[in-house]
Structure formats: C-alpha cells, structure tokens
C-alpha cells in the first residue's frame, strides 16, 4: 500500500540527458527556471516551452510519467490561474458579472502563469526522472562545497539525504507492518471523526519512532565500524567529470537564455 508512493522516481536510461553530469543538470535546471521567469511574451514563451518539449523527447521518458507526477499539483495550478484571472485588471473587459471583472490581460496572464508553472514542474521532473538520487546528492554536495567554507555542513547534509533515501522504503515497509499489526488487534483507522482517526494514528507513530531510533543507533555503530569519521579525508568511488557533452549543454542553454532575453527586451 504505502510502497506505491514514489519519491523522486528515477527511470534508468541511456539518453543524452541521462548521460549529462548531474551537476550540469542541476545548474541547467536553475538557468532554465531563470529563462522561464524572464520570458514575458508569446515568442519567448514558445521558445522556452519548445525547448523543454524537445528535451523531454530526447530523454525518451514516457509523457505518461509527467502527467502522473502533475496530477497532485493540478489544484495548485488551477488556483494560480484563477487568482490571475480574477485579480488582474486591464483595458479590454471580457466578462462583467456582479463584482467579477475578467479582462483580456487577466486571461492571457493566467494562461502564461499556468504554462510557466507547468514548465517549471516538468523541468524538475525531468531532472529527477533522469538522475539517480545518489548522483543528485553527489552533485549537490559538490556544488555546495564552497559554502562549507562559511560553515554550512555540506557533507553532513549530503549524508543525511543519502541515508534518508536509503531508509524511506524500509520505514514505509515497517509502517505497513505496524498498521497490519494494529488492525489485527482491532484498531480502526477508517471510520470515526477526524479527531478519532488522528488518535488512532498514535499507536502507529509510537512504535515507528522507537524503531527508527533503534535503527539510527545501530546504523551509527555500523558506520563507525566502517571507519566513518565525517567528510574530511574521504574519497569517492564515482568522481564527477565534466565531459564535452556537458560543455555543449551549457552552450545550448546559454543560447536559450540569450534568445529569451533578446525576445523579451525587444518585445518581439
């Protein structure tokens, strides 16, 4: 039941996008989001959205995966759209009803905002779909390393992420087991008022927490036994390298950014 939850699901593959260095992908995602926010007219939107569609096509990831991921976010997108639709004033009044005025500008803006959110979310999905969580963690650690100088515990944060990724499935499985065990003892999670149902969760959370602490304790000992002493003096089996492919990708995105800025500034 709980095992079906997908967290940052990764689809292994061998496309150009898959083969990019994870750091490249992270930087490009940030640059792409910047381009999305710079874009402000029809042509620049078409350009940025077209670019994303091409990237998704290259990645050979089924569009189905993106729709599935977007489903829980539909409400958020509708909300953004409606807010923009109703609360943007302009010159061309389309609909006037009671105290509601809908202007052409509002309609255009709502559509643009929804498209922008859609692109932002899909671009992020593209990153997580084509990059294994562990590669992503490595990339974050490597990119944030300069911040270590001002005291940010970069290695520790990366380690925490890595361990969390490792233990989420284990703890979900355990939660399932505890729920079954409590149900077998007659616990009822499905009926009753909201307060009753929240109360019914306590017998699940308590054993789960106790077990998580025990696991943490044992894991800490096991890590110590394997000579873990923090990030200092640590090496990596898989070192990240920028390849010609990555420089090419940086070039393409630089072009996209330049084109978006040009289109926006000159209002084409």
């Amino acid at each position: 039941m709980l095992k079906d939850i997908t967290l940052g699901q990764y689809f292994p593959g061998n496309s150009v996008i898959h083969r990019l260095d994870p750091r490249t992908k992270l930087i490009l995602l940030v640059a792409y989001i910047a381009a999305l926010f710079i874009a402000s007219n029809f042509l620049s939107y078409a350009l940025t959205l077209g670019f994303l569609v091409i990237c998704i096509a290259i990645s050979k990831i089924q569009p189905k995966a993106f729709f599935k991921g977007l489903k829980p976010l539909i409400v958020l997108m509708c909300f953004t759209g409606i807010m923009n639709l109703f609360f943007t004033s302009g010159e061309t009044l389309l609909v006037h009803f009671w105290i509601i005025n809908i202007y052409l500008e509002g309609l255009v803006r709502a559509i643009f905002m929804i498209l922008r959110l859609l692109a932002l979310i899909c671009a992020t999905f593209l990153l997580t779909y084509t990059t294994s969580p562990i590669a992503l963690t490595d990339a974050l650690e490597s990119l944030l390393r300069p911040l270590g100088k001002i005291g940010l515990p970069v290695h520790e944060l990366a380690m925490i992420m890595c361990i969390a990724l490792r233990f989420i499935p284990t703890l979900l499985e355990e939660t399932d087991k505890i729920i079954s065990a409590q149900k077998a003892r007659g616990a009822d999670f499905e009926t009753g008022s909201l307060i009753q149902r929240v109360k019914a969760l306590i017998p699940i959370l308590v054993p789960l927490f106790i077990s998580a602490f025990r696991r943490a304790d044992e894991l800490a000992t096991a890590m110590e036994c394997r000579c873990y002493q923090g990030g200092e003096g640590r090496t990596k089996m898989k070192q990240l390298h920028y390849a010609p492919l990555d420089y090419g990708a940086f070039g393409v995105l630089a072009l996209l950014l330049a084109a978006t800025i040009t289109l926006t500034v000159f209002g084409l």
Partner: protein
Amino acid sequence: MESAVEVKNLCFTYPGVEDTPGVAVFNGLDLNVEEGDFVAVLGGNGSGKSTLAKHFNAILLPSGGTVWVCGLDTAKEENLIPIRRQVGMVFQNPDNQIVANVVEEDVAFGPENLGIPSGEIRQRVDSALENVGMYAYRLHAPHLLSGGQKQRVAIAGILAMAPRCVVLDEPTAMLDPKGRREVLDTVLRLNREQGITVILITHHMDEAAKAKRVVVLDHGQIAAQGTPKEVFAQVELLHSLGLAAPETVELCSALNRQGFSLPLDRLDAQSCAQAIFDAISGEEKT
C-alpha cells in the same frame, strides 16, 4: 603464530543511569584467537557475546584489563582507525548496517572513508562483490534484496576494506535457512581460501560445529572452549547453560540415557548414523 585477538583479564561494566549501579558484564576474561582461526562463540542471551564483540574493534573500551587486536592495544586512541581497518563487523540486522541505496555504493562506503583513490575503490568493490557472489546485484537497491543477500552485501562492504579479521554478531539470526547457508558458506570460504580470521557469534549449533574452535560464554565467563568435538561432548554442561548440542550429539546423548554407550563427538549425520549402526550391530553379536 601471531594472535589476531588477545584479551587479558578483561573487565567491563556498562555505566548505570544516574544513581543505579552499572551492569557488570566481564570480570577478568582471558581469550586468545589466533590469526587464521575460525572461532564460534556460543552463549545464552545476555551472556556478554555482543559486548565482547564490540571490544574487538574498539566500539567499547575495557574498564580493566587489555584487548590487543592484531598487536594493537584498543585502549590507545591513535590505534582506533588502524584497528577498525583490520577488524570488520557484521551485525544481526542487515537493514541497519547498509548505508547507501545502491549495493555498490554501500560496498564503497568503507574504502571511501579510508580515503582510498577512486580507481582502487572500484577494483576493491568489484572483487568484494564477486567474492560474496553479489556482483550481478551491484546496481540493485538493498531494500529489495533477500535477508541472506543483504547480509552478503554487508560482508562485501567489510571485505572491501581488506580486513584481516571479521567479527559476525549473530549474522544469521534473522535469516531463513537458505539465507543462513549462503552467509555461512561465504564466511567459511573466506576463512579457508583467504586466511581471514573469523569470529562468529551464533545461536545455531550446526554453524558452530563447522568452526575450528568453539568458545562458550556464560555470565561473562568462559564456560568451555576447545574444538567443536570437545565442547559439544559436554552435553550436560551445555544444557545447564540453556544451550543445546548439535542434533546428532543430542540424539546420541538421548540414546545413551537409554543405556547405549555412543560417542558424543559425531557432528554430521553420516558419522552419527555409522556410530549408531556400529553400536546396534555390536549389541546383536553379544
């Protein structure tokens, strides 16, 4: 021969919380494990097996006496990392000792901590995984493996650090018979082919019967030690400690209580059957 582990007059007390007195586990324990040996440690729950194991790689430090591991004193701070490089630990619950969410990344964890260059880590990881027969699973997620496979990954993670000694604390307690056999075969092979010293804590007498030496702990004292044949022949002693001998010895001992006089050193089914056959045919002649 040099000792892999040498324990002299070990005393250890778990500190008590606030005013309560601590739990005294050892009160002068002596133990010697030679390099290349395969020692099985038996004992009832709470007899101090895990506590002893944790002294072998300086997770716990003696409150009295000394523990030398590969000639290094565990009480010395500067020996900590050298000792942990030499002595690998495998624990009971395979889930709680696997760190990464890809098998090969987990095996690489130890060598990475030691600061080994990445090319060499790759080699070590591949050969460690081949060594335990898990190479084909190197890109799998650990939580999808069976218990025996997880435990073998944990062993690979330790082999990648190139240890001289492996300590396993009830590694098969949570496994099914198939997983137990996989793990035990792996450990036996490491000892036989690569000369790695193995200290195996177990509740399974058939596993202990395969060791070169058996040590029985009771209340922090050594109640018996010797070859499996010597130790398991002391059936009465084992029973008084809440333990049992391997099934074949139990069978012979039960028959002896019925008036037979069978030897108590038959650890496999074949030789046990032979002994019973001999006894019966001897009786028929007289």
